[in-house]
């Protein structure tokens, strides 16, 4: 990395923003720094390490609040990681990368890189997570809006991720298909639903690694909303999800196989939610 000439470790988000603004395109913020090692944009000469800026917290506070530089391991080991929605954070993050990388990688870094195979992003989408960003002032936006903004070239600093409190009768499930245990997803599925009195009051479905970045599948969600939980509605939602994804061939799988995985994965997630949430099967 001989292009790097400065490595800064600002003590606050405001200081970090000041440094980044002063140096413009030549500066990049990092959390663990994993992706910068692997995919450094040319012309980067300054790294702004955010891990000393007081953002490495995980709090149970009106749901869950996760600081941008909390590592995956920290999140997994936190009380929120254990208890939020039946431990979904602890369980899903166990599938991400390797323990060595989980000790270093941050939720802010993963959102910043937005790898299409990301396991974290579909999970955050279905949990209806929002992010607090800073670009001179704090503001809150949805994860989807944040990702869209980054795709359009916006570069606010991520401060924290907020997960809303889990309503009663809610459950979340995740499926990841990969070749080996330490592998990125060939395809992943995240589903969330709130079921009361056997009916679905909220449903969120996201499929990622299609090989595109995860998006929520409104059409598939529509098959569940207001419906009774039973194998038929689950099957319809899964089929709709498979049809809706932007599936393409790549080295790992064909588009057709990905649709099959999407159908199987969403169905499995929904069945597990059903079992957890106490809906009729």
């Amino acid at each position: 990395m001989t292009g790097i000439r400065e490595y800064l470790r600002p003590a606050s988000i405001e200081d970090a923003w000041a440094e980044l603004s002063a140096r413009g395109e030549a500066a990049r913020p990092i959390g663990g720094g994993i992706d910068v090692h692997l995919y450094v944009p040319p012309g980067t000469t300054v790294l702004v390490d955010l891990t000393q800026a007081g953002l490495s917290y995980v709090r149970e506070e009106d749901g869950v609040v996760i600081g941008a530089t909390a590592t995956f391991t920290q999140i997994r080991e936190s009380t929120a990681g254990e208890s939020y929605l039946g431990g979904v954070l602890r369980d899903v993050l166990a599938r991400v990368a390797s323990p060595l990388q989980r000790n270093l990688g941050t939720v802010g870094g993963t959102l910043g890189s937005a790898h299409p195979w990301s396991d974290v992003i579909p999970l955050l989408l279905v949990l209806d997570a929002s992010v607090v960003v800073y670009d001179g002032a704090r503001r809150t936006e949805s994860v989807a809006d944040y990702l869209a903004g980054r795709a359009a070239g916006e570069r606010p600093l991520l401060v924290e991720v907020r997960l809303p409190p889990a309503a009663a009768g809610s459950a979340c499930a995740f499926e990841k298909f990969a070749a080996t245990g330490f592998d990125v997803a060939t395809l992943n599925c995240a589903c969330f639903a709130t079921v009361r009195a056997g009916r679905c009051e909220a449903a969120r479905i996201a499929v990622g690694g299609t090989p595109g970045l995860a998006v929520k599948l409104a059409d598939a969600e529509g098959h569940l909303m207001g419906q009774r939980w039973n194998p038929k509605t689950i099957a319809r939602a899964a089929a709709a999800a498979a049809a809706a994804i932007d599936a393409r061939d790549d080295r790992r799988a064909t588009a057709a196989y990905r649709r099959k995985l999407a159908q199987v994965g969403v169905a499995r997630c929904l069945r597990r939610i059903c079992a957890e949430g106490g809906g009729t099967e």
Partner: protein
Amino acid sequence: MTDERRDFRVVGRSERKVDGRALVTGKPIFVADLKLAGTLHVKILGSPHAHAHVLRVDTSGAEAVPGVACVLTRDNTPTTRHTTAGQGFPEPSPYDTRMFDDKVRFVGDRVAAVAADTEEAALAALREIRVDYEPLEPVLSIDDARRDGAPQIHDEADARGIYDASRNVVADIDIDVGDLEEGFAASDELVEVTCETQYAQHTPIETHVVYSYLDPDGRLVLRTSTQVPFHVRRIVATTLGIPIRRIRVIKPRVGGGFGAKQEVLLEDIAALVTWRTGRPAFLQLSRKEEFVAARTRHPMHIRVRLGAGRDGVLRAVEMEARSNTGAYGAHGLTVLSNAGSKTLPLYNKAQNARFYGQAVYTTLPVAGAYRGYGATQAYFPLETAMDELAERLGLDPIELRRRNHIRAGETSPIFVKLGEGREGVSQTLKSCELERCLEVGAQRIGWQEKRGRKRRDGSWVHGVGMTVMMQGSGIPQIDMAAATIKMNEDASFNLLIGATDIGTGSDTVLAQIAAEVLGVPLDRILVTSSDTDVTPFDVGAYASSTTYVSGKAVERAAERTRAQILDVAAAALAADVSELTLADGAVLGPNGTRISLSDVCLRAMYASDQFQIGAIASCVPSESPPPFLANFAEVAVDTETGRVRVVRYVAAVDCGTPINPRLAEGQMEGAIVNGIGYALTEEMLLSSQGRVRNPSWFDYKILGALDVPPIEVILVDSYEPTGPMGAKSIGEIGINGPIPTIANAIYDAVGVRLWRSPFTAERVLAAMRGRP
């Protein structure tokens, strides 16, 4: 078993590895851990084209980069054609390689090398090299290579040993026994199976690496991560025109080889840089280069036809193999040959057999030696065909093997017809416990209970499959190993062996043999290995030869040393040698007399009729007694996604006496896990331009700790009278099992046959749906 079995004191014990403590504490004992002042960092420029003439190489820009000491291209390096294959001289591989050639023949092929003060300077200089290529049509498959009008990949005038360069054929083999067509005509059932195996890479955790420097006498020292130090010395000497006496090759600890390092891949470049500049040179392949420009397994396309009578006895076996050897022919002939020589003798009841095939050039990554060496590829169609045949005959697959496999006291005509690239050597087996392997393996996996049950567990269906196999123990009448032993005053012994420990534990195993003969504990044997100045010759670590061949040399040297000890003790005790016993660090004589080993040495070194107690001995084996293996796998197939999970793997192996049982198990376990990766997840993918698309562990998936199923290795009781302490070998055979065993288990589970590895989830699902 036989009368020759003794109660071993050291052999047969799972002693700790002699180099274990140094490894587990991270001592600097690998090639890259050396640091010499003034070291030049060497980087290689690889071709972006799969096939091209090199018209012009302009290095002026590179030479101008500050810190650059040396730039090598085809314009300023020796033109000697050689093979990179680390094999005995004369090597059974074509001499088709030049250090830097007028042509490039695969993406990543060498074009130039730069040596500079720093890695950054070397990389900067590489970027300044200007090459004019004339791209040629790439040749991307065996069929492409054999097509009329296909480009001739090796058209150089000075290549030698290519079977038919004009047709891109490196090697052609055709041997037969009996009358094949008669055999088929006399058969009641015929089965024909064609299988295809993929490009795979060894991915040793340590890539290829070499450190060269001049010693104070101006001799070239190559400290290299190799399986073949003596072949390195000879081939570098020939290639560079430097006398052998001016070269010393030292192998320190090696971070895995598996065949990839049975090759002279980098040493010539580093050696030449040092020879010309006088400075040390360090050259290590990046992980990407290891995938692209090192060596791979030969992808093969093999057809097997079996004919058997209603009685289940094979009448005829036909194997036709086509092998893709990549851009250069190293190991092309011998791997092809092994596909037949390590498989067909297993079923010696077939009186009629034919093995034929070709190894063919393509403009793709270079295939070379890889554990199993052709047998791995060939057992796929052979054991699949046997499984199919069993079903047709209404026989249990185990029973079909029982009726056909070779036994002790038997031979096969294939042994003499097919060796490693030339005629082989006849042998009558003196040990074979395959019967017992089948019995114990079947019982451990629960064969009777599980076969045909197709137990369901949600979307998963379970099945079991089995296979049998053999390999070899060294190359008879060709491989040679030697060992020197010398005694020290504290009754310790230096054991100097050319044999090459690449992580296999051969230093330990060979020391155990010496300790056993000399009647001392293991820690009295001090091993120095693989230094061409100090240790006697050994072909190196390949062909599963080390325990059987090098072990025999060690046993002989130890026996000669022991005889000298007894002679000295006899003189000291005024007794006859026949009255003496050597045990527990002392020589016991008649009437309660005794002399410690230490005193024996002190007497011989200082006191009376002084001489150095010690001996050198060699071994050229006259046969190659095969280890035998029965594999049993339980798999579960996810009928929704096609994913295959190995639930349990049992391997019952006859390796003769396991000198160190834990190390023997470790060899099997490692080979099996590598084989499961080869069966389920590993595949090098190539673009339409011949470029490797997945040259990293990110995209080329090998098994990790989360993926490994419960594996049980059973070392079946056995004794090979021709082997040291009754040992045969175990290094390679384990890797041959998983592909066909898993394939047969998948068939048991979901009734689908797979003909192409790896069995990815997508392929299995497509097969279940009846699509190719």
